[in-house]
């Protein structure tokens, strides 16, 4: 079995006390326990504190543009579905700038796990409201308070029948490891929205704030029941559930429907220009 140390990357440049440290540690533990060799793993990210993660992990990495991790991951998956594919991203990266890709990657059912480090704030750019910030939150760029209602990624994912919808909290590592493992194992697009307190800019949704509210969905929760899952995903207040809200294997995975993959991943298929010459015949 692999060791967590096998996944040690660069030294993180996060703030001391940042929730991302626990997240990273849990991810390493998960990967080690699942015995996924670093070179069979590709981690794609955008830009933000969360999106720096691939540098801090030993793996293949594509650290792309703010908001654009999912299309990159989609392209990778479509030509080489054999790689283990993760996307690590922030709430701004994924639900703000990248909102359209979030919707459409889900519809494509790309076979990958999406970990959203949800600190309800823009961390790297120093504290602006994000889509998951609470409505009315004031900041230096929200003089009237955040004017938008708080985005609910779980209910949206359930509304589009995403096959794996979960929420975790970095303050509960064992549970988070369980979610990460299940997400990676799930065949298809899996979303894990992870509460990750930002100690520098989010003075409301702190570790303590989450700790006080977070509770596990009951064992009896039937993750196969879409209506129930939807209902539970709407809970937000003094108590906030974490766990696997919704889960099923009903949907076709994107790469199921790609005939060119029948002979294996495209990068492994040879190309011989000679075999294409007939293509000009139709012009005569």
């Amino acid at each position, binding site marked *: 079995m692999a060791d967590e140390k096998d996944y040690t990357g660069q030294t993180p440049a996060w703030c001391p006390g940042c929730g991302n440290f626990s997240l990273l540690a849990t991810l390493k533990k998960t990967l080690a326990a699942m015995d996924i060799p670093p070179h069979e793993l*590709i981690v794609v990210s955008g830009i933000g504190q969360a999106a*720096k993660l691939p540098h801090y992990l030993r793996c293949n990495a594509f650290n792309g543009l703010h908001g654009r991790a999912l*299309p990159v991951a989609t392209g990778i998956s*479509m030509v080489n579905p054999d790689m283990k594919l993760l996307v690590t991203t922030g709430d701004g990266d994924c639900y703000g700038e990248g909102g359209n890709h979030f919707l*459409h990657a889900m519809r494509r059912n790309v076979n990958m796990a999406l970990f959203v480090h949800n600190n309800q704030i823009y961390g790297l750019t120093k504290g602006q409201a994000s889509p998951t910030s609470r409505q009315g939150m004031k900041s230096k760029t929200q003089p009237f308070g955040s004017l938008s209602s708080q985005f609910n990624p779980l209910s949206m994912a359930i509304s589009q029948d995403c096959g794996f919808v979960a929420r975790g909290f970095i303050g509960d590592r064992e549970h988070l490891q369980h979610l990460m493992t299940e997400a990676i194992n799930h065949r298809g697009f899996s979303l894990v929205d992870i509460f990750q307190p930002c100690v520098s800019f989010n003075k409301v949704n702190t570790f303590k704030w989450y700790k006080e509210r977070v509770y596990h969905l009951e064992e009896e929760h039937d993750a196969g029941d879409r209506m129930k899952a939807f209902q539970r995903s709407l809970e937000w207040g003094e108590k906030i559930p974490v766990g696997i809200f919704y889960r099923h294997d009903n949907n076709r995975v994107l790469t199921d429907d790609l005939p060119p993959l029948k002979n294996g991943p495209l990068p492994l298929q040879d190309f011989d220009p000679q075999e294409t010459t007939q293509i000009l015949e139709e012009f005569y």
Partner: protein
Amino acid sequence: MDYSIRIAGEAGQGLQTIGAALGKIFSRLGYHVFTHQDYMSRVRGGHNYYQIRLSEKAISASRDVIHILVALNIESIDMHRLSLHSDGIILYEPQNDEEEEDEQFLATAFTQIAKDAGGNKIMANVVAVGAILGLFGFDLQVAEEIIKESLAKKSGEIIEGNLKAMQAGSDYVRKNCRKLDRFQTVEAEQDNLMLINGVQAIGAGAVMSGVRFYAAYPMTPSTGIMVYLAGKAVDFGIIVEQAEDEISAINMALGASYAGIRAMTGTSGGGFALMTEGVSLAGITETPIVIAEMQRPGPATGLPTRTEQSDLDFVIHGGHGEFPRVVLTPGTPEQAFYAANKAFDLAEKYQIPVFIQADQYLGDTEWTYRDFDLSDLSYKDYRLRHKDLAELKDYKRYAVSSDGISPMAVPGESRHLVVVDSDEHDEDGHIIEDAETRIRMFDKRLHAKMERLRKEISPPVLYGERTAPEIILVCFGSTYGVIREAVDILGKDYSLAMLHFSEVYPFPALNEFDYADYLRKARSTVCIENNATGQFNRLLRAEMGIACSSRINRYDGRPFTLESLVEEIRQRL
């Protein structure tokens, strides 16, 4: 022999079917063909036309004058009759039993003729084809062959009906046309020419260069490339995906390229605008990508189905920050075919974005060729593969090398990790901020590569008077064909040549061919562009310090046509 036929009518009336069939028939007969289309941004109605020119000699432009007008509705007569040659003829669907004005008119009840021949309404199209062939007195054998091929999947009955309808069309004109000998034909040198348009040429070039992934969002006039590749997807193992937007399209293609295959995207100006951030990403991550930018008239939505050369500056400069790129601007389907091949080769060799920039006009116009010389194509896999990787002790995606090129490995193919980053990074691909690494990366990624890239660029072509022309017509991209023919005409009266650039960035150096010397020695240099501001003219000055003495610009969304361009040039001389 040099005739032009224009099929005019509403969108949805089948003029594309007629035009396409005629082009194919003439080229199979061995004639040189040039076709172009003029259509509105609507699915039904409006005024569109399809023009086919044929000759026994090589041709490369549309003419203003037409010999046969097929008017599928009455308005088309008024719209186009001024273009009719004095010996020309108008075939039109009669409305009421109006009188024919003179021998320039021949009422041809396409639909009725089709029905009388036992066919249906849709077969009016083949009646029109037959009628035109009849006017030239062509034998219908080749045409029948082509009908059969194109209807191969239909029932025998339908095929039979079509053949009969075509025959009836031909018979009708041969019986009713008052001056049947007006169009003299000569026999073609050899039969069976190839007929291909710019979009198909780019697509075929891409397939033959090993494209394995194409992501795009529909946008006229680039959609044709996607349609072409989608048609080949299953047979040639190409993944074609329609993205949710252009941002996604280019990022998907970059992901696919990173994963280890040849990837491409295509769009028009508005979609390219959305891709520019991704172009910059390709630049800093050194991810190979080929981008077809098919221009149409802007700004914004502009004239979405028409043509213009107004994104030159944008494609050269689109994307923030500084990184190497190549911009190819083919002028013919043949050049477009090789441009696609060169684009894939350079993109992978130098790990950069390479553009094929064309426009609606080049995309849609069909040209004839004997064949394409396939030995001119190159294919080389520049990535590190299994065995190369296995032998490596250490792997660094951005290892500094004197020629600027770092080894490109395929993630998952070995134990080596492939790390790429949109931030400035070290040799391993990890984010850095120090000045020294930044400078080293710039010197490698930008300066070293640009120096080598300059040597890859082909010089412009000089056509016409090749020793000291007094007048030089300067151009790039899709104006090649019409200017070439203009030179043929004007060359009789003037010492004149065309200088055509089909590769514009990096700008061609002078060592192979000192075209700057020609320009400086010419008495008059005219820069001809299908745009309003003279972008190429400015580029030439920016890159070479050379200013043309005058400019001809067309910016009404239409391509240059032969006679009117010749006239405009004469006025400058």
